């Protein structure tokens, strides 16, 4: 760092000015600016949903902008797809790698533009060219190796090599380090430094504060789809960045005091839960009548923790106690038997059967209680469904309505009804208000508060800071598969939560 001349304006390779983009109901980008120079590593930071990915998608032609302009190498440009952007020299290295596992490294790098000898593919030339690329990058990978045999880190190197082979002038790294080991991260950084020395412009998206400090020259922070500011990395602290990331005014009243009495019994205790990479040694307690918020950034392992707890995914180890008694939960069937209900973040895929009626969805977890002999007691089934339509004020012409015809908020109510019919004492709400409009959101909040007041215990996973601060009695914070903190609502601030959610990785 420091070797970048930050004053030379003609070094600017890319300028995005006043980029605006709306989706139905969401103002995703609100006149965002971004300036990237040659020979610079520029961090792009922000909370979940701040608009980083959307901005990059606008840049590379996946989304069309509503207004604003993109200047690249002194000309105004507009790309219509990633291919055009690639041709011009703007390449994304994705977090999820786009590689074909069964092909060789060389075949992957030149996929879609294979060298030909007559009608035959010239594998030898592709291998030669790949080797040249790797030498340039000082990477040690055999171009003849099968892609699926490489480690994630090596695969990423290949992705970078592929980007270089496109004569890239701007490379965007989207959370490149998430899946890498420390050694691999070091290798990655040395490559990035090389690229910087070759005067490429690099955009680096990451949540890891320590990496930002090490590798980037400038930081642009976004919040709620808007541009907040750009800092020179050397001259700012982690706190500065966090303050810019979270510095929003909270409109809804945050909870100031826990509604749970101090002596409320523990209904659920999870000890040393391990499930794959995303859930490592997670322990927590849930009290009766409590709303326990789970906060963290995307990929922190919150949903994975919930799914492991619920038995939806296999777990390696960990003990679960319900009302002080140790229980075995190896499938959702077990979890439901023990009175746990799970409302997935992805309603349509995991929550409801959209092609079926409200009635059929409401009794999905309870059908055995609505049988008379061998037959479903449709009258009883209908009665209970109508009761919950009423109680949750679900907007529908009747219980026979197909769930597909309901709005997001009302679909969510159907899922809630499913677990209330089951009389679950522990409810896991995973992103309960995702894709739900403001009015319905408030209704869901009221409902959750009511359920907690009635003695149900709730785990609420949320990526929305306002939601966490408004609803939780206590907050568990996770980062990269580990629990990094636990804060009582009385002490919770946005800064404190974000600090734990972006804990330095050492």
């Amino acid at each position, binding site marked *: 760092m420091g070797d970048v001349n930050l004053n030379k304006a003609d070094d600017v390779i890319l300028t995005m000015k006043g980029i605006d983009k709306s989706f139905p109901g969401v103002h995703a980008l609100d006149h965002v600016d971004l300036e990237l120079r040659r020979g610079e590593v520029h961090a792009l930071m922000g909370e979940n949903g701040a608009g980083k990915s959307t901005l990059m998608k606008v840049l590379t032609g996946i989304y069309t902008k509503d207004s604003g302009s993109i200047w690249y190498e002194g000309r105004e440009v507009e790309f219509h797809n990633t291919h055009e952007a690639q041709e011009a020299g703007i390449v994304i290295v994705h977090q999820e790698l786009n590689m074909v596992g069964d092909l060789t490294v060389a075949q992957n790098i030149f996929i879609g533009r294979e060298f030909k000898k007559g009608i035959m593919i010239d594998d030898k030339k592709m291998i030669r060219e790949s080797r040249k690329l790797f030498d340039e990058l000082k990477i040690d990978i055999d171009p003849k190796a099968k892609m699926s045999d490489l480690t994630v880190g090596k695969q990423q190197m290949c992705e970078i090599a592929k980007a270089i082979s496109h004569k890239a002038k701007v490379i965007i790294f989207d959370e490149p380090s998430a899946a890498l080991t420390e050694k691999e991260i070091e290798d990655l950084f040395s490559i990035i430094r090389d690229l910087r020395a070759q005067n490429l412009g690099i955009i680096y998206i990451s949540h890891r504060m320590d990496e930002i400090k090490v590798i980037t020259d400038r930081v642009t922070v976004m919040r709620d789809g808007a541009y907040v500011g750009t800092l020179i990395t050397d001259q700012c602290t982690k706190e500065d960045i966090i303050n810019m990331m979270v510095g929003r005014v909270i409109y809804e009243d945050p909870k100031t005091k826990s509604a749970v009495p101090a002596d409320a019994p523990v209904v659920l205790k999870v000890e040393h839960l391990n499930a794959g990479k995303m859930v490592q040694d997670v322990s927590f307690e849930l009290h009766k009548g409590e709303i326990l918020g789970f906060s963290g950034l995307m990929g922190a392992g919150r949903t994975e923790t919930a799914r492991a707890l619920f038995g939806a995914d296999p777990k390696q180890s960990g003990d679960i106690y319900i009302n002080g008694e140790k229980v075995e939960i190896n499938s959702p069937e077990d979890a439901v038997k023990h009175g746990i209900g799970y409302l997935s973040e992805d309603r349509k895929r995991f929550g409801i059967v*959209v*092609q*079926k009626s409200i009635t059929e969805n409401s009794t*999905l*977890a309870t*059908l*055995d209680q609505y049988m008379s002999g061998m037959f479903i007691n449709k009258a009883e089934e209908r009665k209970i469904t109508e009761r919950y339509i009423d109680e949750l004020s679900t907007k529908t012409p009747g219980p026979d309505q197909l769930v597909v015809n309901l709005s997001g908020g009302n679909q969510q109510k159907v899922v809630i009804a499913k677990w209330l019919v089951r009389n679950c004492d522990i409810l896991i709400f995973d992103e309960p208000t995702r894709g739900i409009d403001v009015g319905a959101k408030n209704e869901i909040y009221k409902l959750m508060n009511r359920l907690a007041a009635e003695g149900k215990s709730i785990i609420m996973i949320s990526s929305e800071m306002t939601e966490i601060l408004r609803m939780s009695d206590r907050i568990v914070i996770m980062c990269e598969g580990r629990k990094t903190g636990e804060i009582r609502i009385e002490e919770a601030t946005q800064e404190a939560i974000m600090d734990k959610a972006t804990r330095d990785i050492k």
Partner: protein
Amino acid sequence: MNGNVGALLCCFSGVDGTSRGFFERKQSAKSNLDPVGGKKLEKIKQNPIIKKLGFNRIILFLILLLMYAVFSSVVKGFASMDRILSILNYVYFLGFLALGVTFVIATGGIDFSIGPVMFCCALMAGYTLNNYGMPVILCILMSILIGFLFGMFNGYLVAFVGVPPFIVSMASMNIAKGLGSVFTKTQSVSWPQAADEAGKGWYRNLVKYNGIPTGLILFAIAVVILFIVMNNTQAGRYILCLGSNKEAVRLSGVNVKKWQMSAYVICGLLVGIAAVFFVGAYTTVQPGLGDTYNNEAIASCVMGGTSMVGGLASIGGTVIGVFVISLLQEGIMALRMTKEVQMIITGLIVIIFVYADVSARRRKN
């Protein structure tokens, strides 16, 4: 649906509250986009009686009548009792096959082994009857048992082991063909004739007794029972729901593997019963055959509004579909065309209806 024993007629016209067929879905998708167009049609479909019977099934039923009228006017003497009985003979066994596979398709799966398994059942039970002197009633049970075992086999592999239904049923199709051939030493098997002096021919009364199509009564009873299974029991509910969204059902704490397997077991049982009705009508079975019936059974399902993607199924629709295919086969024979012509038509029916279903869904999304 009030009451568990729905009226017979109701079943035939296919009343089942939750399932909606292709015409209906296609239309509702259209009406979402364009509230003005198709207003008249929309009004007709909103009629409660039509809604209950299912618009597409009414259309299919009208097509059936039209086909009968056309065949009757083109072929001399088509409108005779003999013809009807002949059509019914085809309806019985194809009906059981199609109803069975309806359950499997409802889960989003497929079974290409039904035809050959039916033949395998008939061959093995018939061979035992002729060569080992086992009583007819036990042979009938044996046939059903073999079908059941094939259903268990398919269902276990699909639901618990996770092998794709396509592969499983292709494999068991070949196993069934091979098993039937090996067991009978590649001989065709003739079940006893009606006037068998040892009284072994009594089973044919299941199909026809004194000129009365008793098979139709038995088939009707089976349809009513299966209609109830599909719409009023846990098995049917879960089969339909998991066909629509298996993961959501699993996350509701339901043992989806068990219920997914049950669809194949139901199918297997019905295939075993189909075998009995096949020999009841035709007596002779040849080894190594049966796959043409797969297409005919699947065509009956998709015509009736059962979606190949799973989640939507109509017992009533399948029954009408079975009648359409059976009439078609009789008509084509009467027109002195070969079975191959019918195979072409059935193949096209499957493609057209599956395409219509897929495109209706796509428009809806």
